[in-house]
């Protein structure tokens, strides 16, 4: 029988097609793993409910787990618990930054959208940045401008 660690290692190969450097494990999408005799069930909690990449990631996760030799594999979408941006791991944050996508700050308490404004530029690290638009090229991205290195950049939205 597989261990949870082996399953999570395998799922490191499954990436968000819109951010192909970060795995679904690092993004905090895995809400649960259940292992039985020749049977694995995982639950995926999507970042944004309308994210068009969810079905792609769900199907790839099943395919990757089948490649481990498990016959009965099921990956299900859940909103329990709802995903929030604190679920992104430290490795995930670093990879987002390297990809040019500023990770959202860790927050305490409920989401207050004032938080979206305080973000460091992923290119130069400056905090002298301004929010240009809370809506960007995908549901999960906002557009900012860095006054220091004078470049536009995107942030993965706090949620």
């Amino acid at each position: 029988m597989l261990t949870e660690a082996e399953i999570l290692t395998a799922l490191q190969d499954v990436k968000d097609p819109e951010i192909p450097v970060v795995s679904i494990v690092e993004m905090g999408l895995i809400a649960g793993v259940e292992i039985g005799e020749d049977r694995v069930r995982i639950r995926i909690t999507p970042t944004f409910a309308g994210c068009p990449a969810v079905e792609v990631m769900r199907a790839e996760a099943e395919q990757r787990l089948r490649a481990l030799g498990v016959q009965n594999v099921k990956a299900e979408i859940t909103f329990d618990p709802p995903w929030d941006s604190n679920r992104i791991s430290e490795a995930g944050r670093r990879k987002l930054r390297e990809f040019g996508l500023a990770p959202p700050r860790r927050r305490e308490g409920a989401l207050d959208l004032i938080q979206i404004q305080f973000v460091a530029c992923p290119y130069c690290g400056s905090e002298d940045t301004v929010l240009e638009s809370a809506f960007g090229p995908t549901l999960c991205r906002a557009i900012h401008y860095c006054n220091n290195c004078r470049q536009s950049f995107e942030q993965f939205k706090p949620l």
Partner: protein
Amino acid sequence: MNQIALKELLFRLADDEVIIGHRNTEWTGLGPIVEEDIAFASMAQDELGHAQIYYSLLHALGEADPDRLAFLRDASAFHCAQLVELPKSDWAFSVARQFLYDAAETVRLAALSQSAYAPLAQAARKFAGEEKYHFMHGKTWVTHLGQATAESRARMQAALDHAYPYALGLFETAEADAAMAAEGLCAPEVELKRVWLALITPILTEAGLALPTAAPVEGGRRGQHTEHLTALLNDMQLVFRSDPEAVW
């Protein structure tokens, strides 16, 4: 659990989202500035995603699959409020409608997060975080346009006056509402409306805009719609109806 009341509640939620989502896609390529083009397209994508999930909950209760629910029903089978079916009109109207609608959704999702139907409560908790971005957007523009110039204020007020009676129709009740409240599926509409008014009134005041006084335009929750919904469905359903069995 009262299945009739639960299904009616889900149809209202799903139909409001799919229709306003479709209306908001109509700004794609036509927004006054590129950021707003993207904002309305993003909000539309969220709304269509939420509609799909509400329809999936209906499917789990024995209704047809989400595509068939969205694309094969006629106008009289839709439970959306008339507010969402009105043409996108000018920018001021779309901003006013979105502000009033998103405020109502903010209030409604908070109530639904406590719903006795667990799958609905989980979905509502999820959508509430996303909806914060929509409401911030509407609030920002209403405040900005209300305070900017005499023309922007006048156009914003006219748009608000036009949208407001229809927005009151979001809180229309029908026979099933007593069961919805009794079973703890959702808070009563009259209570949601009270919280909604308390949310929008100070924002409009701050923006220098007057809260209109008007009688509600109702009927949508009972399947009575404007001619605009039929026209919208003719567009939205055209491709699917041309071959409902096609595999995409």
